[in-house]
């Protein structure tokens, strides 16, 4: 019983960080109908930046997040204008292949800069835990999840309360209508993409505390994030959060009761099952383009 509860606690904590990572990906899809396959690589970049700040400058990873987020917002901005913008109106194939290529390009660049051995930010408190009877909560994981929740709430406030958020929601529901009422679509798209990259960076910061990573981890991470957004329904933020918790707990259960070797397979199998049984996901709606005119 203790083992089960312990497994569930760890799963929920990890799921919280997954939720932050996946919500950025799903918001980008909602606004511009592009699946950013480079999202995993952007996340790893955030992890490396946080690691560098901690390792070389001694900045605590939980504070380093602020710098990471700002840098990654800039990276997202540049990536958007240089690569994504020209293919916004192009067929699906173009944007998929473009971001796929981008993911590998970034992986290679990071490999050159940071080398190919496993890294992780390990300030002192990471090795300690809060203990509740026979249960334990690793501090690194706990703070990481807490911060992820704070950032997600902040993002949600931006989206629901600000003028920028209204523009983002308007563009997501109908780009043409939003343009007609004067929303500056290219700017909104750029900001959305940059915000997505920033949230990926923030999630990466947490991952750098919670586990180790190499540039090549990006591919497993993007698979995990894709399975979450597919399960939640493409474009749905609440769906992504629910799906992230499901996957976090699911992986934790598989890791404990089956074998850690098979927990990466869970997200992949999930993708297959959902796309076969319910392509629109848990909380997604059928896309407009599925309906004949």
């Amino acid at each position: 019983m203790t083992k089960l509860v312990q497994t569930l606690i760890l799963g929920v904590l990890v799921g919280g960080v997954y939720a932050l990572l996946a919500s950025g990906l799903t918001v980008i899809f909602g606004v511009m109908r592009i699946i950013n396959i480079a999202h995993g690589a952007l996340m790893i970049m955030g992890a490396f930046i946080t690691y560098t700040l901690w390792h070389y400058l001694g900045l605590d990873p939980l504070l380093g997040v602020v710098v990471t987020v700002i840098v990654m917002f800039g990276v997202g901005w540049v990536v958007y204008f240089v690569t994504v913008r020209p293919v916004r109106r192009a067929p699906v194939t173009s944007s998929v292949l473009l971001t796929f290529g981008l993911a590998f390009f970034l992986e290679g660049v990071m490999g050159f800069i940071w080398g190919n051995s496993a890294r992780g930010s390990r300030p002192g408190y990471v090795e300690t835990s809060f203990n509740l009877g026979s249960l334990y909560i690793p501090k690194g994981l706990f703070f990481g999840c807490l911060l992820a929740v704070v950032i997600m709430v902040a993002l949600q406030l931006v989206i629901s309360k600000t003028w920028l958020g209204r523009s983002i929601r308007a563009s997501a529901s109908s780009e043409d209508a939003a343009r007609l009422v004067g929303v500056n679509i290219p700017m909104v798209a750029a900001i959305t993409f940059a915000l997505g990259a920033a949230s990926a960076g923030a999630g990466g910061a947490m991952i750098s505390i919670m586990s180790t990573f190499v540039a090549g981890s990006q591919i497993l991470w993007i698979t995990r994030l894709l399975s979450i957004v597919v399960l939640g329904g493409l474009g749905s933020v609440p769906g992504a959060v629910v799906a992230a918790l499901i996957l976090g707990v699911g992986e934790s259960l598989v890791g404990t009761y089956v074998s850690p070797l098979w927990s990466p397979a869970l997200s992949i199998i999930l993708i297959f099952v959902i796309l076969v049984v319910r392509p629109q996901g848990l909380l997604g709606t059928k896309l407009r383009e599925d309906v004949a005119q």
Partner: protein
Amino acid sequence: MSAGRVARIAPVVVVALLIVLFPVLTGNGYYQNMVIISLVIAVGATGLNIITGFAGYPSLAQGAFLGLGAYAAALGSLRVGGSPFYWIPLAGVLAGFFAFLLGLLSLRTRGFSFAIITVSFLLLVRIIVQNWRHFTEGSSGLTLPIPNWDRAYMNWPFHFALVLLLGFSMLMAYRIRRTKFGVGLIAMREDEDKAASIGINTPTYKMLGFVCSAVFVGMAGAVYGYYITFVDPLGMFGLLLSVQIILSLLLGGKGTMWGPVLGAFIIEPLNEFANNSLGGGNSRLVIFGGVLVLVVLLLPQGIIPTVTRRVTTYRERRRPGLTGSRIELCERPRPATRSDPSAPNVLEVRNLNKRFGGLQAVADCSFGVPQGSLTALIGPNGSGKTTVFNIITGMMSADSGEVYLDGRRIDHLPPWTRAHLGVGRTFQITRLFGEMTVLENLVAPLREFSAGQLNRGAISGDEAARADELLALVGMTAYRDRPTSTLSYGQRKLVELAQVLALDPRVVLLDEPAGGINPTLVERLGELILELNASGRTFLIVEHNMPFVMGLCNPVRVLARGTTICQGSPEQVQRDRCVLEAYLGDDFVLEPKGVGNA
């Protein structure tokens, strides 16, 4: 053969011969190896061309089929034993089988979801091979027996086996492009729902396309496995291999015969360069990732199509364009309408209901279309007319209700079967296959599905003759060989009408035929519809142009809030209180003037 043709073909033949005879011409092992790997990638890219180039499905898993083939050969010869002559064909069968499975799993996915499912497939295969240790040796990989042929042969057997496989792949691709199967795949790329509505059995085509794209790749993978004598999960199921294959296809040119081969012979030398001069690893990632981004941004069509287009533009620079020349209107006596509202129904819908979330789009809608009639379906915007069309053609399924064609219930049938039985439709905003010519668009509709059909030539003489007849009928003969994307909106409407007629349907559903085209063309279209009706064709027409509808159709069905509120002759409908309130307006007065007799 003309001198120009010789001049164009000769270099291709020379280069092809150089590649085929490469190991005979040089004993340099480095370059021989480079050519062999290029051939492997070329087979992969030629296969990928079928599903991605023709059918438009972006598959990121092509490398998986090479890996599966290599593993089949390795496991077969180590665990069972036996000659490569068994294991290479079996590897092809295995790859085909896995492609079939993947096709089955991805049947309901398109675009993004499809890309996601393919990349997941690749990773899943890798994880299974890694973790199934007692069978596959996991990450440590398997070592294949070294070939026992005379050292004097060197790499010749590998080279020639791959040349043969590439030859077969290219022949298959060449053949597919010239059959009904290939035209169907391209139609799916352009517009899958439309393809289904003109009788193309899209799921079967998709699955078959998948299998074709994998079989030779699996065999090439097996040869590759024997060649490098070592297989491991990271080498065989690495994503970078898939990236190289995709890149070869994109760079050379999707949908072309030689593009994938040209691309492979550029990408593999680049790979060797990155490995030997730049230290491999990260530089390969940067190069291939970066080149993929650049190709998508700067050379989306690929080398061969871009060059071909430049050459064509140069050749045709003085030729006057067709656009702007007049559509031939022919003066003929206006045929009398034969529409008989009391004839038995050819098409009938009963108690249809369809809900989109909280919106009841169609509510208990019932009406019939009498045999040989020109029936109109009118009603305000949002009254559910197009939804009813979608339900009749099978693009959407109703929540409840029945659809009958010639007394046979068809609402459980897929769209292409309904097209085969005789339901043809046009769309409110025309949907033609833009990259295909007018003629190709007209021979794309299929009136049945059979295994033999797949291998039939794309355009038979009969079909071409029939297409020409239809083109003459709608006055579009001059545009026969133009891609439909270059036509104007009105011209597309005419071509789409001809396309539907090629199905020889029992009933033609026209969705706003007169919308957005000029009055002369509306007039001409009205005459055309009357003419077709006079020869016995039944129509169901959705239209907002009241003079057009009232002058042409009888009976008229009026839809409001998803329900049929009134049915009858144009005169009855125009006097009906409900209709005036819901749609026409109290002040509605129609000039007593029909189409064509002004």
